[in-house]
Protein backbone atom coordinates (compact mmCIF):
# COMPACT_ATOMS: atom_id res chain seq x y z
CA UNK A 1 0.00 0.00 0.00
CA UNK A 2 1.32 3.40 -0.88
CA UNK A 3 2.36 5.56 2.05
CA UNK A 4 2.21 8.75 0.02
CA UNK A 5 0.10 11.33 1.87
CA UNK A 6 -3.24 11.68 0.16
CA UNK A 7 -3.47 15.44 0.38
CA UNK A 8 -2.40 18.13 -2.03
CA UNK A 9 -2.15 21.71 -0.90
CA UNK A 10 -4.06 24.14 -3.03
CA UNK A 11 -0.85 25.92 -3.84
CA UNK A 12 0.68 22.82 -5.39
CA UNK A 13 1.20 23.46 -9.09
CA UNK A 14 -0.84 21.45 -11.57
CA UNK A 15 1.15 18.90 -13.50
CA UNK A 16 -1.27 17.28 -15.95
CA UNK A 17 -1.34 18.65 -19.48
CA UNK A 18 -4.53 20.50 -20.35
CA UNK A 19 -5.71 21.31 -23.83
CA UNK A 20 -8.70 22.87 -25.52
CA UNK A 21 -9.82 21.03 -28.61
CA UNK A 22 -13.11 21.32 -30.49
CA UNK A 23 -14.68 23.19 -27.58
CA UNK A 24 -13.80 20.43 -25.14
CA UNK A 25 -11.33 20.75 -22.28
CA UNK A 26 -8.99 17.79 -21.88
CA UNK A 27 -7.21 17.31 -18.55
CA UNK A 28 -4.72 14.50 -18.86
CA UNK A 29 -6.74 11.89 -20.75
CA UNK A 30 -10.10 13.09 -19.55
CA UNK A 31 -12.13 15.16 -22.00
CA UNK A 32 -14.87 17.36 -20.57
CA UNK A 33 -17.46 18.73 -23.00
CA UNK A 34 -20.04 21.38 -22.15
CA UNK A 35 -23.39 20.66 -23.78
CA UNK A 36 -26.22 23.00 -24.57
CA UNK A 37 -29.56 21.47 -23.70
CA UNK A 38 -33.21 21.92 -22.87
CA UNK A 39 -34.20 23.36 -19.58
CA UNK A 40 -36.44 20.76 -17.97
CA UNK A 41 -39.58 21.92 -16.10
CA UNK A 42 -39.08 22.63 -12.43
CA UNK A 43 -42.39 21.07 -11.43
CA UNK A 44 -41.26 18.65 -8.74
CA UNK A 45 -41.30 15.68 -11.08
CA UNK A 46 -38.33 13.52 -12.03
CA UNK A 47 -37.33 13.72 -15.66
CA UNK A 48 -35.07 11.58 -17.76
CA UNK A 49 -31.92 13.16 -19.14
CA UNK A 50 -32.32 15.74 -21.92
CA UNK A 51 -30.34 15.64 -25.18
CA UNK A 52 -27.29 17.54 -26.32
CA UNK A 53 -28.17 20.39 -28.64
CA UNK A 54 -24.54 21.01 -29.52
CA UNK A 55 -21.57 22.26 -27.59
CA UNK A 56 -21.00 25.58 -25.93
CA UNK A 57 -18.20 27.43 -27.67
CA UNK A 58 -15.20 27.51 -25.31
CA UNK A 59 -12.40 30.13 -25.48
CA UNK A 60 -9.12 30.41 -23.63
CA UNK A 61 -8.86 33.38 -21.27
CA UNK A 62 -5.28 34.03 -22.36
CA UNK A 63 -6.36 34.51 -25.98
CA UNK A 64 -8.39 37.52 -24.91
CA UNK A 65 -6.14 38.74 -22.10
CA UNK A 66 -6.59 42.40 -23.00
CA UNK A 67 -10.37 42.19 -23.00
CA UNK A 68 -11.41 40.01 -20.07
CA UNK A 69 -11.96 41.10 -16.45
CA UNK A 70 -8.64 41.27 -14.60
CA UNK A 71 -9.67 38.63 -12.06
CA UNK A 72 -9.92 36.12 -14.88
CA UNK A 73 -6.21 36.48 -15.53
CA UNK A 74 -5.54 35.34 -11.96
CA UNK A 75 -7.80 32.33 -12.41
CA UNK A 76 -6.80 31.55 -15.99
CA UNK A 77 -8.78 28.84 -17.68
CA UNK A 78 -11.50 29.24 -20.28
CA UNK A 79 -14.82 30.98 -20.74
CA UNK A 80 -18.07 30.14 -22.46
CA UNK A 81 -21.37 31.97 -23.08
CA UNK A 82 -24.73 31.07 -21.60
CA UNK A 83 -28.03 32.84 -21.72
CA UNK A 84 -29.72 33.64 -18.43
CA UNK A 85 -31.68 30.55 -17.31
CA UNK A 86 -30.08 28.37 -19.97
CA UNK A 87 -29.20 24.80 -18.96
CA UNK A 88 -25.99 22.82 -19.39
CA UNK A 89 -24.64 19.35 -18.87
CA UNK A 90 -21.14 17.93 -18.90
CA UNK A 91 -19.94 14.79 -20.64
CA UNK A 92 -16.76 12.89 -19.88
CA UNK A 93 -14.80 10.63 -22.16
CA UNK A 94 -11.27 9.48 -22.71
CA UNK A 95 -9.18 7.94 -25.45
CA UNK A 96 -7.67 5.68 -22.79
CA UNK A 97 -10.87 4.46 -21.14
CA UNK A 98 -8.98 1.67 -19.37
CA UNK A 99 -7.27 4.33 -17.25
CA UNK A 100 -9.89 6.31 -15.30
CA UNK A 101 -9.39 9.65 -13.63
CA UNK A 102 -11.03 11.22 -10.59
CA UNK A 103 -12.75 14.53 -11.25
CA UNK A 104 -14.05 17.18 -8.88
CA UNK A 105 -16.63 19.59 -10.24
CA UNK A 106 -17.40 22.80 -8.37
CA UNK A 107 -19.87 25.58 -9.11
CA UNK A 108 -18.74 28.92 -7.72
CA UNK A 109 -16.10 27.01 -5.71
CA UNK A 110 -18.82 24.86 -4.09
CA UNK A 111 -18.50 21.14 -4.67
CA UNK A 112 -21.32 19.99 -6.98
CA UNK A 113 -21.50 16.51 -5.42
CA UNK A 114 -21.20 17.25 -1.70
CA UNK A 115 -22.09 20.93 -1.45
CA UNK A 116 -18.97 21.50 0.64
CA UNK A 117 -16.35 24.23 0.21
CA UNK A 118 -13.60 23.75 -2.35
CA UNK A 119 -11.03 21.15 -1.37
CA UNK A 120 -8.36 19.25 -3.25
CA UNK A 121 -8.42 16.39 -0.79
CA UNK A 122 -9.49 12.98 -1.99
CA UNK A 123 -10.84 10.82 0.78
CA UNK A 124 -13.50 8.25 1.58
CA UNK A 125 -16.24 10.84 1.86
CA UNK A 126 -16.70 10.90 -1.86
CA UNK A 127 -17.16 14.30 -3.42
CA UNK A 128 -15.75 13.44 -6.82
CA UNK A 129 -16.61 11.51 -9.96
CA UNK A 130 -14.68 8.61 -11.42
CA UNK A 131 -14.58 8.78 -15.22
CA UNK A 132 -15.17 6.24 -16.62
CA UNK A 133 -17.64 4.88 -15.58
CA UNK A 134 -19.32 8.26 -14.94
CA UNK A 135 -20.36 9.44 -18.42
CA UNK A 136 -22.35 12.59 -17.72
CA UNK A 137 -23.18 15.16 -15.06
CA UNK A 138 -26.31 17.25 -15.50
CA UNK A 139 -26.52 19.11 -12.21
CA UNK A 140 -25.90 19.24 -8.49
CA UNK A 141 -26.35 16.08 -6.44
CA UNK A 142 -29.36 16.95 -4.34
CA UNK A 143 -30.96 13.63 -3.43
CA UNK A 144 -30.32 9.92 -3.77
CA UNK A 145 -30.58 9.10 -7.47
CA UNK A 146 -31.53 12.67 -8.31
CA UNK A 147 -29.70 15.75 -9.50
CA UNK A 148 -30.99 19.27 -10.08
CA UNK A 149 -30.19 20.68 -13.47
CA UNK A 150 -27.39 23.22 -13.92
CA UNK A 151 -29.06 26.52 -14.84
CA UNK A 152 -27.10 29.72 -15.52
CA UNK A 153 -28.00 32.84 -13.54
CA UNK A 154 -26.23 36.19 -13.23
CA UNK A 155 -24.07 36.73 -10.17
CA UNK A 156 -25.40 39.17 -7.63
CA UNK A 157 -29.04 38.13 -7.60
CA UNK A 158 -28.82 35.31 -5.06
CA UNK A 159 -29.96 32.52 -7.34
CA UNK A 160 -26.77 30.50 -7.64
CA UNK A 161 -25.72 27.57 -5.49
CA UNK A 162 -22.74 29.65 -4.40
CA UNK A 163 -24.95 32.58 -3.42
CA UNK A 164 -27.32 30.45 -1.39
CA UNK A 165 -24.63 28.60 0.55
CA UNK A 166 -22.05 31.34 1.04
CA UNK A 167 -24.20 34.45 1.15
CA UNK A 168 -22.23 36.10 -1.65
CA UNK A 169 -21.55 35.50 -5.34
CA UNK A 170 -17.89 36.20 -6.01
CA UNK A 171 -16.63 33.33 -8.10
CA UNK A 172 -19.34 31.91 -10.32
CA UNK A 173 -18.49 29.61 -13.21
CA UNK A 174 -17.36 26.00 -12.95
CA UNK A 175 -14.12 24.72 -11.47
CA UNK A 176 -12.69 21.40 -12.57
CA UNK A 177 -9.81 19.43 -11.12
CA UNK A 178 -8.87 15.99 -12.45
CA UNK A 179 -6.47 13.58 -10.78
CA UNK A 180 -4.47 10.81 -12.38
CA UNK A 181 -4.37 7.36 -10.84
CA UNK A 182 -1.14 6.41 -9.10
CA UNK A 183 1.49 4.86 -11.31
CA UNK A 184 0.96 1.21 -12.01
CA UNK A 185 -2.57 0.99 -10.63
CA UNK A 186 -4.01 0.45 -14.09
CA UNK A 187 -2.30 -1.39 -16.87
CA UNK A 188 -3.27 -1.19 -20.51
CA UNK A 189 -5.19 -4.30 -21.59
CA UNK A 190 -3.66 -6.05 -24.59
CA UNK A 191 -6.85 -5.75 -26.62
CA UNK A 192 -6.72 -1.98 -26.30
CA UNK A 193 -3.21 -1.93 -27.70
CA UNK A 194 -4.38 -3.95 -30.68
CA UNK A 195 -7.35 -1.70 -31.27
CA UNK A 196 -5.12 1.34 -31.29
CA UNK A 197 -2.79 -0.28 -33.78
CA UNK A 198 -5.63 -1.12 -36.10
CA UNK A 199 -6.90 2.40 -35.68
CA UNK A 200 -3.57 3.86 -36.64
CA UNK A 201 -3.42 1.69 -39.73
CA UNK A 202 -6.94 2.71 -40.69
CA UNK A 203 -6.08 6.34 -40.21
CA UNK A 204 -3.05 5.97 -42.41
CA UNK A 205 -5.07 4.32 -45.18
CA UNK A 206 -7.76 6.93 -44.96
CA UNK A 207 -5.17 9.67 -45.27
CA UNK A 208 -4.16 8.37 -48.67
CA UNK A 209 -7.75 8.72 -49.78
CA UNK A 210 -8.07 12.30 -48.67
CA UNK A 211 -8.24 14.81 -51.46
CA UNK A 212 -7.17 17.79 -49.45
CA UNK A 213 -5.18 17.42 -46.29
CA UNK A 214 -3.26 20.65 -46.59
CA UNK A 215 -5.41 22.77 -44.30
CA UNK A 216 -3.49 23.65 -41.20
CA UNK A 217 -5.05 26.84 -39.92
CA UNK A 218 -3.84 27.60 -36.45
CA UNK A 219 -6.13 28.65 -33.67
CA UNK A 220 -6.39 32.39 -33.68
CA UNK A 221 -8.68 34.58 -31.64
CA UNK A 222 -10.51 37.28 -33.50
CA UNK A 223 -9.33 40.86 -33.08
CA UNK A 224 -11.03 42.88 -30.38
CA UNK A 225 -14.00 44.96 -31.48
CA UNK A 226 -12.92 48.58 -31.74
CA UNK A 227 -13.41 50.61 -28.58
CA UNK A 228 -14.56 47.65 -26.48
CA UNK A 229 -11.85 46.94 -24.00
CA UNK A 230 -13.17 44.95 -21.07
CA UNK A 231 -9.93 44.96 -19.10
CA UNK A 232 -10.62 45.75 -15.48
CA UNK A 233 -8.51 48.23 -13.59
CA UNK A 234 -8.49 46.39 -10.27
CA UNK A 235 -8.38 42.69 -9.54
CA UNK A 236 -11.54 41.04 -8.21
CA UNK A 237 -13.68 44.05 -8.88
CA UNK A 238 -16.28 44.15 -11.57
CA UNK A 239 -16.64 47.19 -13.76
CA UNK A 240 -20.09 48.59 -14.44
CA UNK A 241 -19.86 47.08 -17.90
CA UNK A 242 -19.52 43.57 -16.59
CA UNK A 243 -21.89 43.81 -13.62
CA UNK A 244 -24.43 41.04 -14.06
CA UNK A 245 -22.56 39.76 -17.09
CA UNK A 246 -20.70 37.01 -15.27
CA UNK A 247 -22.78 33.99 -14.48
CA UNK A 248 -22.94 31.21 -11.96
CA UNK A 249 -24.96 28.03 -11.83
CA UNK A 250 -28.21 27.63 -9.95
CA UNK A 251 -30.51 24.64 -9.54
CA UNK A 252 -33.24 23.73 -12.01
CA UNK A 253 -35.60 20.80 -12.39
CA UNK A 254 -35.03 17.32 -11.03
CA UNK A 255 -33.55 14.53 -13.12
CA UNK A 256 -32.71 10.91 -12.53
CA UNK A 257 -28.95 10.60 -12.46
CA UNK A 258 -26.56 8.68 -10.26
CA UNK A 259 -23.08 9.58 -9.11
CA UNK A 260 -21.26 6.30 -9.05
CA UNK A 261 -19.29 5.38 -5.94
CA UNK A 262 -15.57 5.14 -6.59
CA UNK A 263 -15.10 1.49 -7.59
CA UNK A 264 -11.36 1.68 -6.94
CA UNK A 265 -11.10 3.54 -3.63
CA UNK A 266 -9.75 6.95 -2.64
CA UNK A 267 -6.20 5.64 -2.32
CA UNK A 268 -6.14 5.00 -6.08
CA UNK A 269 -5.71 8.67 -6.96
CA UNK A 270 -2.46 10.58 -7.02
CA UNK A 271 -3.32 13.97 -5.57
CA UNK A 272 0.05 15.31 -6.68
CA UNK A 273 -0.74 14.71 -10.35
CA UNK A 274 -3.66 16.87 -11.31
CA UNK A 275 -4.86 19.52 -13.73
CA UNK A 276 -7.25 22.38 -13.00
CA UNK A 277 -9.46 24.52 -15.18
CA UNK A 278 -11.55 27.52 -14.15
CA UNK A 279 -14.51 27.80 -16.52
CA UNK A 280 -15.88 31.33 -16.49
CA UNK A 281 -19.47 31.72 -17.66
CA UNK A 282 -20.52 34.98 -19.29
CA UNK A 283 -23.76 36.25 -20.72
CA UNK A 284 -24.20 36.66 -24.45
CA UNK A 285 -23.44 40.39 -24.43
CA UNK A 286 -20.11 40.10 -22.61
CA UNK A 287 -19.16 37.13 -24.77
CA UNK A 288 -19.79 39.17 -27.89
CA UNK A 289 -17.92 42.14 -26.43
CA UNK A 290 -14.90 39.96 -25.72
CA UNK A 291 -14.83 37.73 -28.77
CA UNK A 292 -16.74 39.63 -31.44
CA UNK A 293 -18.85 36.51 -31.94
CA UNK A 294 -22.43 35.84 -31.04
CA UNK A 295 -23.17 32.73 -29.00
CA UNK A 296 -25.39 30.00 -30.43
CA UNK A 297 -29.11 30.66 -30.30
CA UNK A 298 -31.00 29.61 -27.19
CA UNK A 299 -32.26 26.00 -27.36
CA UNK A 300 -35.89 25.14 -27.95
CA UNK A 301 -38.22 24.41 -25.05
CA UNK A 302 -38.64 20.96 -23.53
CA UNK A 303 -42.29 21.07 -24.54
CA UNK A 304 -41.54 21.71 -28.21
CA UNK A 305 -38.75 19.16 -28.25
CA UNK A 306 -40.98 16.47 -26.80
CA UNK A 307 -43.89 17.29 -29.11
CA UNK A 308 -41.60 16.48 -32.03
CA UNK A 309 -41.03 13.02 -30.58
CA UNK A 310 -37.30 13.50 -30.10
CA UNK A 311 -35.52 11.24 -27.63
CA UNK A 312 -34.72 11.68 -23.96
CA UNK A 313 -32.12 9.54 -22.27
CA UNK A 314 -31.58 7.22 -19.35
CA UNK A 315 -28.91 4.78 -18.28
CA UNK A 316 -28.99 1.17 -17.18
CA UNK A 317 -26.69 1.87 -14.28
CA UNK A 318 -28.43 0.64 -11.14
CA UNK A 319 -25.66 -1.92 -10.76
CA UNK A 320 -23.11 0.87 -10.30
CA UNK A 321 -24.65 2.28 -7.12
CA UNK A 322 -25.03 5.88 -6.11
CA UNK A 323 -23.29 8.37 -3.87
CA UNK A 324 -25.54 9.59 -1.08
CA UNK A 325 -27.51 12.73 -1.78
CA UNK A 326 -26.05 15.84 -0.21
CA UNK A 327 -28.00 17.29 2.71
CA UNK A 328 -26.36 20.61 1.96
CA UNK A 329 -27.38 20.67 -1.69
CA UNK A 330 -30.83 19.29 -0.87
CA UNK A 331 -31.47 22.61 0.84
CA UNK A 332 -30.60 24.66 -2.23
CA UNK A 333 -33.64 26.32 -3.73
CA UNK A 334 -34.33 26.10 -7.41
CA UNK A 335 -34.41 29.12 -9.69
CA UNK A 336 -38.21 29.00 -9.94
CA UNK A 337 -38.57 28.64 -6.16
CA UNK A 338 -36.56 31.83 -5.71
CA UNK A 339 -38.63 33.50 -8.41
CA UNK A 340 -41.71 32.69 -6.33
CA UNK A 341 -40.10 34.00 -3.15
CA UNK A 342 -39.24 37.24 -4.89
CA UNK A 343 -42.76 37.39 -6.31
CA UNK A 344 -41.34 37.44 -9.81
CA UNK A 345 -43.67 36.18 -12.45
CA UNK A 346 -42.58 32.84 -13.93
CA UNK A 347 -39.73 33.38 -16.38
CA UNK A 348 -40.18 30.10 -18.21
CA UNK A 349 -42.88 27.62 -18.95
CA UNK A 350 -42.80 25.08 -16.11
CA UNK A 351 -45.70 23.10 -17.55
CA UNK A 352 -45.19 19.41 -16.96
CA UNK A 353 -43.90 17.62 -20.03
CA UNK A 354 -45.26 14.12 -20.56
CA UNK A 355 -42.51 11.96 -22.01
CA UNK A 356 -43.72 8.60 -23.36
CA UNK A 357 -41.54 5.66 -22.33
CA UNK A 358 -40.88 4.91 -25.99
CA UNK A 359 -39.18 8.30 -26.31
CA UNK A 360 -36.65 7.47 -23.59
CA UNK A 361 -33.51 5.87 -24.98
CA UNK A 362 -31.68 3.75 -22.43
CA UNK A 363 -27.95 3.12 -22.69
CA UNK A 364 -26.09 0.51 -20.68
CA UNK A 365 -23.09 1.61 -18.64
CA UNK A 366 -20.50 -1.09 -18.30
CA UNK A 367 -19.18 -1.88 -14.88
CA UNK A 368 -15.44 -1.22 -14.70
CA UNK A 369 -13.62 -4.41 -15.48
CA UNK A 370 -11.33 -5.49 -12.69
CA UNK A 371 -8.95 -7.33 -15.02
CA UNK A 372 -6.66 -4.38 -15.60
CA UNK A 373 -6.46 -3.21 -12.00
CA UNK A 374 -3.32 -3.91 -10.05
CA UNK A 375 -4.34 -4.56 -6.47
CA UNK A 376 -3.08 -2.63 -3.46
CA UNK A 377 -0.21 -4.92 -2.59
CA UNK A 378 1.26 -4.63 -6.06
CA UNK A 379 1.41 -0.87 -6.24
CA UNK A 380 4.79 0.74 -6.65
CA UNK A 381 6.07 2.12 -3.37
Amino acid at each position, binding site marked *: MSTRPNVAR*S*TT*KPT*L*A*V*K*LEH*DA*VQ*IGDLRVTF*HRTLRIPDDGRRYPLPPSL*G*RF*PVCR*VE*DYADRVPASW*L*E*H*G*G*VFLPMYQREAMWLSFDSDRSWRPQALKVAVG*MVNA*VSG*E*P*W*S*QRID*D*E*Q*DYLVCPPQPWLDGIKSE*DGIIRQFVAMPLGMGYTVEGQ*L*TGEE*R*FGGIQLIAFDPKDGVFTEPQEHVDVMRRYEVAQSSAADDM*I*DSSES*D*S*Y*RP*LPAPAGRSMRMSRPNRRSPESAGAEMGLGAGGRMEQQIY*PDPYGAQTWDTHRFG*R*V*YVHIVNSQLYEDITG*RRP*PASPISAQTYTEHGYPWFDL*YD*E*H*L*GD*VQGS*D*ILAGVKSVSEIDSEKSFKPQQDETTVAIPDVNVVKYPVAKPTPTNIVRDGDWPK
Partner: protein
Amino acid sequence: MARDSFSHPELGSALAWLRARARLTQSEVVERVFEQQRERPHAERETLSTVYYQLLETGKRTPRTPKLAALLAALGSDQAELQGLLAAQPWRHVPTSKARISKHTPRPAAYAAAAEEALAGGVWSSPIVASPISFASDGEQHRTRGELSELVDHFENLSQRDRSALLAQARRLRFGKR
Protein backbone atom coordinates in the same frame (compact mmCIF):
# COMPACT_ATOMS: atom_id res chain seq x y z
CA MET B 1 -54.97 -28.86 -8.59
CA ALA B 2 -51.77 -27.57 -7.01
CA ARG B 3 -49.89 -25.36 -9.40
CA ASP B 4 -46.13 -25.15 -9.75
CA SER B 5 -44.26 -22.63 -7.75
CA PHE B 6 -40.91 -21.11 -8.62
CA SER B 7 -38.21 -21.42 -6.02
CA HIS B 8 -34.70 -20.07 -6.17
CA PRO B 9 -32.57 -18.65 -3.32
CA GLU B 10 -31.74 -15.53 -5.39
CA LEU B 11 -35.24 -14.87 -6.72
CA GLY B 12 -35.88 -12.01 -4.28
CA SER B 13 -32.62 -10.31 -5.30
CA ALA B 14 -33.53 -10.72 -8.96
CA LEU B 15 -36.93 -9.12 -8.44
CA ALA B 16 -35.36 -6.24 -6.54
CA TRP B 17 -32.76 -5.77 -9.29
CA LEU B 18 -35.45 -5.73 -11.98
CA ARG B 19 -37.53 -3.30 -9.96
CA ALA B 20 -34.56 -0.96 -9.54
CA ARG B 21 -33.95 -1.10 -13.26
CA ALA B 22 -37.60 -0.27 -13.92
CA ARG B 23 -37.38 2.55 -11.34
CA LEU B 24 -40.53 1.40 -9.60
CA THR B 25 -41.50 1.25 -5.96
CA GLN B 26 -42.86 -2.01 -4.59
CA SER B 27 -46.41 -0.65 -4.55
CA GLU B 28 -45.99 0.58 -8.15
CA VAL B 29 -45.07 -2.95 -9.21
CA VAL B 30 -48.25 -4.30 -7.66
CA GLU B 31 -50.27 -1.52 -9.28
CA ARG B 32 -48.76 -2.39 -12.66
CA VAL B 33 -49.78 -6.01 -12.26
CA PHE B 34 -53.35 -4.91 -11.65
CA GLU B 35 -53.23 -2.52 -14.60
CA GLN B 36 -52.08 -5.30 -16.89
CA GLN B 37 -54.84 -7.56 -15.64
CA ARG B 38 -57.42 -4.86 -16.29
CA GLU B 39 -56.18 -4.69 -19.87
CA ARG B 40 -56.76 -8.44 -20.27
CA PRO B 41 -60.16 -9.02 -18.64
CA HIS B 42 -60.46 -12.62 -19.78
CA ALA B 43 -57.11 -13.74 -18.43
CA GLU B 44 -56.87 -15.43 -15.05
CA ARG B 45 -56.37 -12.87 -12.27
CA GLU B 46 -53.58 -13.10 -9.73
CA THR B 47 -54.11 -11.70 -6.27
CA LEU B 48 -51.19 -9.69 -4.99
CA SER B 49 -50.49 -7.20 -2.23
CA THR B 50 -47.56 -4.91 -1.56
CA VAL B 51 -46.82 -6.79 1.65
CA TYR B 52 -46.72 -10.08 -0.23
CA TYR B 53 -44.41 -8.55 -2.83
CA GLN B 54 -42.11 -7.31 -0.06
CA LEU B 55 -41.95 -10.87 1.29
CA LEU B 56 -41.03 -12.11 -2.19
CA GLU B 57 -38.11 -9.68 -2.42
CA THR B 58 -36.86 -10.72 0.99
CA GLY B 59 -37.07 -14.40 0.04
CA LYS B 60 -39.76 -15.22 2.60
CA ARG B 61 -42.31 -16.36 0.05
CA THR B 62 -42.22 -18.50 -3.08
CA PRO B 63 -44.54 -17.39 -5.90
CA ARG B 64 -46.60 -19.64 -8.07
CA THR B 65 -45.48 -19.61 -11.69
CA PRO B 66 -48.43 -17.56 -13.09
CA LYS B 67 -47.96 -14.97 -10.37
CA LEU B 68 -44.27 -14.75 -11.11
CA ALA B 69 -45.02 -14.35 -14.82
CA ALA B 70 -47.38 -11.47 -14.04
CA LEU B 71 -44.74 -9.83 -11.87
CA LEU B 72 -42.04 -10.24 -14.48
CA ALA B 73 -44.29 -8.68 -17.11
CA ALA B 74 -44.92 -5.73 -14.79
CA LEU B 75 -41.18 -5.37 -14.33
CA GLY B 76 -40.59 -5.41 -18.09
CA SER B 77 -38.98 -8.83 -18.03
CA ASP B 78 -39.76 -12.50 -18.65
CA GLN B 79 -38.75 -15.99 -17.65
CA ALA B 80 -35.85 -16.14 -20.10
CA GLU B 81 -34.27 -12.99 -18.71
CA LEU B 82 -34.91 -14.16 -15.18
CA GLN B 83 -32.99 -17.36 -15.85
CA GLY B 84 -30.12 -15.35 -17.26
CA LEU B 85 -30.13 -13.01 -14.29
CA LEU B 86 -30.16 -15.87 -11.81
CA ALA B 87 -27.13 -17.29 -13.57
CA ALA B 88 -25.19 -14.01 -13.77
CA GLN B 89 -26.42 -12.48 -10.47
CA PRO B 90 -25.39 -8.92 -11.35
CA TRP B 91 -26.71 -7.63 -8.00
CA ARG B 92 -23.71 -9.21 -6.34
CA HIS B 93 -21.54 -6.53 -7.95
CA VAL B 94 -23.51 -3.61 -6.57
CA PRO B 95 -21.38 -1.70 -4.05
CA THR B 96 -22.24 -3.00 -0.62
CA SER B 97 -23.02 0.45 0.68
CA LYS B 98 -23.52 3.85 -0.77
CA ALA B 99 -20.48 6.07 -0.83
CA ARG B 100 -20.52 8.43 2.11
CA ILE B 101 -20.44 12.17 1.95
CA SER B 102 -20.09 14.55 4.83
CA LYS B 103 -23.18 15.54 6.76
CA HIS B 104 -21.42 18.51 8.27
CA THR B 105 -22.88 21.80 7.03
CA PRO B 106 -20.12 24.42 6.77
CA ARG B 107 -20.60 28.03 7.72
CA PRO B 108 -20.66 30.56 4.88
CA ALA B 109 -17.27 31.92 5.96
CA ALA B 110 -15.72 28.49 5.47
CA TYR B 111 -16.62 28.59 1.78
CA ALA B 112 -14.95 31.95 1.27
CA ALA B 113 -11.85 30.93 3.22
CA ALA B 114 -11.44 27.70 1.27
CA ALA B 115 -11.92 29.44 -2.07
CA GLU B 116 -9.52 32.25 -1.25
CA GLU B 117 -6.84 29.85 -0.11
CA ALA B 118 -7.31 27.73 -3.22
CA LEU B 119 -7.15 30.65 -5.62
CA ALA B 120 -4.17 32.34 -3.97
CA GLY B 121 -0.67 31.89 -5.29
CA GLY B 122 -0.57 32.56 -9.00
CA VAL B 123 -2.71 31.56 -11.91
CA TRP B 124 -5.02 28.84 -10.63
CA SER B 125 -5.76 26.98 -13.85
CA SER B 126 -3.30 24.76 -15.61
CA PRO B 127 -1.70 26.18 -18.76
CA ILE B 128 -4.00 25.30 -21.63
CA VAL B 129 -2.78 24.33 -25.06
CA ALA B 130 -5.21 25.23 -27.85
CA SER B 131 -5.61 22.85 -30.74
CA PRO B 132 -5.42 24.09 -34.31
CA ILE B 133 -8.92 25.05 -35.32
CA SER B 134 -10.34 28.07 -37.03
CA PHE B 135 -13.69 29.39 -38.06
CA ALA B 136 -14.85 31.63 -40.85
CA SER B 137 -13.97 35.24 -40.12
CA ASP B 138 -16.74 36.85 -42.14
CA GLY B 139 -20.29 37.65 -41.16
CA GLU B 140 -21.17 33.96 -41.34
CA GLN B 141 -18.97 33.01 -38.42
CA HIS B 142 -21.82 32.87 -35.90
CA ARG B 143 -23.78 30.40 -37.97
CA THR B 144 -20.67 28.51 -39.01
CA ARG B 145 -19.58 27.97 -35.46
CA GLY B 146 -23.01 26.74 -34.40
CA GLU B 147 -23.28 24.40 -37.36
CA LEU B 148 -19.79 23.07 -36.81
CA SER B 149 -20.59 22.46 -33.15
CA GLU B 150 -23.65 20.47 -34.16
CA LEU B 151 -21.75 18.53 -36.81
CA VAL B 152 -19.04 17.55 -34.34
CA ASP B 153 -21.69 16.33 -31.95
CA HIS B 154 -23.42 14.26 -34.65
CA PHE B 155 -20.09 12.85 -35.80
CA GLU B 156 -19.08 11.71 -32.34
CA ASN B 157 -22.35 9.89 -31.87
CA LEU B 158 -22.24 7.98 -35.14
CA SER B 159 -20.88 4.51 -35.73
CA GLN B 160 -17.56 4.18 -37.52
CA ARG B 161 -19.41 3.09 -40.64
CA ASP B 162 -21.72 6.09 -40.57
CA ARG B 163 -18.80 8.42 -39.90
CA SER B 164 -17.11 7.12 -43.02
CA ALA B 165 -20.32 7.60 -45.00
CA LEU B 166 -20.69 11.15 -43.70
CA LEU B 167 -17.09 11.99 -44.54
CA ALA B 168 -17.50 10.54 -48.02
CA GLN B 169 -20.63 12.60 -48.55
CA ALA B 170 -18.88 15.75 -47.31
CA ARG B 171 -16.01 15.16 -49.72
CA ARG B 172 -18.41 14.58 -52.61
CA LEU B 173 -20.25 17.81 -51.79
CA ARG B 174 -17.03 19.78 -51.61
CA PHE B 175 -15.06 18.30 -54.43
CA GLY B 176 -17.63 16.73 -56.73
CA LYS B 177 -17.59 13.12 -57.86
CA ARG B 178 -14.17 11.67 -58.21
